């Protein structure tokens, strides 16, 4: 009984929390929101070919970046990284230079945090060296670019942009580019404080019909509700407010598809929790049935001493309820421990147990116990006391 409740608690707790955990795992896919200047020039780029720098004049301000953490859903922003691109002559080739944060320390108010591509794009790999330092400089040479230049670059070699830190493999355009700290590109392009694009990775809620509505056509109450829900669209809207003259969009490939994965996983865990609850209920009711049948002599004795069916039934129901409440409490505690263990073992972080779960668990335990013993009690009441006491039943 206690075990049943414990497992049901653990399953519900894990089921409720698994969505959030998987959401974080999914964020290893990279950014799901992009912020860019409203009047950015058309990007003319095919694969590694790049006709002209992404934006002509318009830029965002680097000094505004820490304010990302100050938006309503700031705590849902897991990582972000700014990008500024330009081209330079390098070894007789015109190559793309990408400036960004690697693992930069930023301050917003009293809060200090670190962000950059290492957090945003966990699949970026540096070989033959280390990550550059955002303040101290360093150059990552794209792995394909290094191969095409046919020069035996090594960590520590001096380039016009700084010393080589290592070689970067991403599977994307960065493999054919030089990746350096943002400040280096700002100096090279003579664009102080400028940023072309900001990629943001945020924990979001799967999109539903309400999320897709146009915020400018909502009434005040709906708008508040929309604004205060962590949809990709509303977080993008808040980012857009943070940067004057910017546009923020969800990256549909990431945002749309992770919603499907997430809702499927959490939906399945809840269904499993439900199924395990029903199974626990059946198992408990079988156990209750045997214990009550075992006590049929007691029932016979009570009946022959003049107890009414109501008295006997209420006796059993009270006993069952006490049992359920005790089992509910112990099971809840045990289940919380199990859920924590699962969380730590699998996701390396604890599972949040809401106290609101306790009354639900106890209510369910009561329901299961009383419901499960009802049939057995009815049968025990129908027994003829004479037959039972004689020992023939």
């Amino acid at each position, binding site marked *: 009984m206690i*075990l049943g409740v414990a*497992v049901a608690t653990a399953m519900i707790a894990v089921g409720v929390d698994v969505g959030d955990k998987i959401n974080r795992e999914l964020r290893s896919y990279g950014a799901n929101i992009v912020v860019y200047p409203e009047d950015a020039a058309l990007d*003319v780029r095919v*694969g590694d070919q790049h*006709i002209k720098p992404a934006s002509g004049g318009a830029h965002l301000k680097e000094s505004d970046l820490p304010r990302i953490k100050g938006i309503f859903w700031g705590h849902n922003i897991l990582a972000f990284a700014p990008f500024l691109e330009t081209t330079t002559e390098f070894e007789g080739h015109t190559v793309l230079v990408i400036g960004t944060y690697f693992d930069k320390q930023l301050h917003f108010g009293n809060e200090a945090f670190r962000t950059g591509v290492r957090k945003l794009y966990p699949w970026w790999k540096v070989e033959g060296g280390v990550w550059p330092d955002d303040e101290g400089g360093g150059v990552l040479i794209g792995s394909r670019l290094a191969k095409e230049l046919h020069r035996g670059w090594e960590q520590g070699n001096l380039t016009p942009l700084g010393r080589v830190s290592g070689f970067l493999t991403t599977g994307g355009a960065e493999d054919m580019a030089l990746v350096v700290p943002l400040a280096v590109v700002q100096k090279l392009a003579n664009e102080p404080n400028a940023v072309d694009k900001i990629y943001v990775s945020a924990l979001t809620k799967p999109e539903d019909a309400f999320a897709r509505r146009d915020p400018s056509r909502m009434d005040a109450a709906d708008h508040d509700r929309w604004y205060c829900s962590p949809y990709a669209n509303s977080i993008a809207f808040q980012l857009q407010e943070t940067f004057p003259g910017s546009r923020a969009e969800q990256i*549909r490939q*990431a945002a749309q598809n992770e919603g*499907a994965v997430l809702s499927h996983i959490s939906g399945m865990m809840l269904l499993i929790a439900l199924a395990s609850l029903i199974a626990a209920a059946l198992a408990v009711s*079988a156990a209750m049935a045997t214990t009550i049948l075992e006590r049929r002599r007691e029932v016979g004795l009570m009946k022959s001493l003049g107890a009414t069916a109501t008295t006997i039934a209420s006796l059993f129901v009270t006993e069952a309820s006490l049992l359920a409440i005790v089992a509910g409490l112990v099971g809840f505690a045990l289940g919380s421990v199990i859920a924590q263990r699962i969380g730590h*073992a699998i996701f390396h972080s604890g599972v949040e147990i809401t106290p609101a779960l306790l009354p639900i668990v106890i209510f369910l335990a009561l329901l299961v116990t009383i419901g499960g013993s009802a049939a057995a009690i009815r049968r025990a009441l129908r027994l003829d006391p004479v037959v039972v006491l004689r020992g023939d039943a």
Partner: protein
Amino acid sequence: MSLRRSMFLHLLRRGLLGRGNRPLIAFIALTVAATMITAMLSLYYGLESKLNRDFRAYGANVTVAAPEGNVLPADALENAQHVLPSGSLVVPFAFAIAHASDGSAVVVAGTDFSKLQSLDKWWLVSKWATKDNESIVGVKAEPHISFANGGFDLNFSGRTFHLIEATTVKTGAEEENRIYVSLPAFERWTGVQPSLLEISVPGAREQVNSAIQKLQTAFPAMQVRPVRQLLEAQGAVITRMRSVMLASTLLITLTVALCVFSTLTSSVLERRRDFAVMKAIGSSQGTVNGIFAGEALVIALVAAFAGYLVGSGLAAWISEANFHAAVSPRIGVLPLVIACSVALAVLAALLPLAQLQRIEPAGILKGE
């Protein structure tokens, strides 16, 4: 048939059918256990393929690109489809930089719309282009084109192409800067061949990796690359979910087994008088064990089959409700379910008997 054997069978039949609904409780308890084991195992095995399917919706997981300035061999598309497992989706892309009527440069891509439609389902379009002169215009490219005669003109090295806009596309990524037209029309207009294949290979990481190897052998001069962020996220989520499912399967199975075990044990203990009478009239411990274990075995077998059926149904229902695609019943689960429920039932019958053995039959019959 020896007398002994027919007596054994008689007692077995009496034990199963002549005791009212007592065996029914044991049967229900065991069926519940078998149901949960079946359902959890089926879901555990089925989950991965369902999640892999979800991740396919992200689009291509492999790309084959021609080196800069080159195009793919003419038979690349058929070749790729030939070496890839069935169910793979291969979408060709050809690129050119054309000039819009205001003189600004814009990337035009030629592709196969019907395939692109199933590859990139997340594209926000009002409808997909179908005709040769229809195009899909990125929302950022749209301000740069000017409409005339129900369409717009694009210029590629002196040749003008009059296109109709079927829809705009919103993706939040670089696609918004481009204009997409159908590949045959694109080739007639520019003479440029495809330089990129976007490929979606079904299955887990291993299948994708083997597909990459096959593509590399088929196209030694081309750049075959995995879409690493997708494979990374897919791997992370699936590994975690596998552990979560394994933990829940073990937990649920264990609990249900314990509950069932206690029910079965008490129902055997309840029959201590039968046990005592058998012993008193001279049956050996082995025979009594045989009778009780035989009963348990029959109940467990029937319960295992019933549980397998109900459990497969439950798993199918859960996955249908959740993924809109049922997991098919797995016959491989059945032996495991039978083994579990038989072990559970026989153990639950024999352990209390071993306990009773230490008491004199007379003591039990006196009611002590």
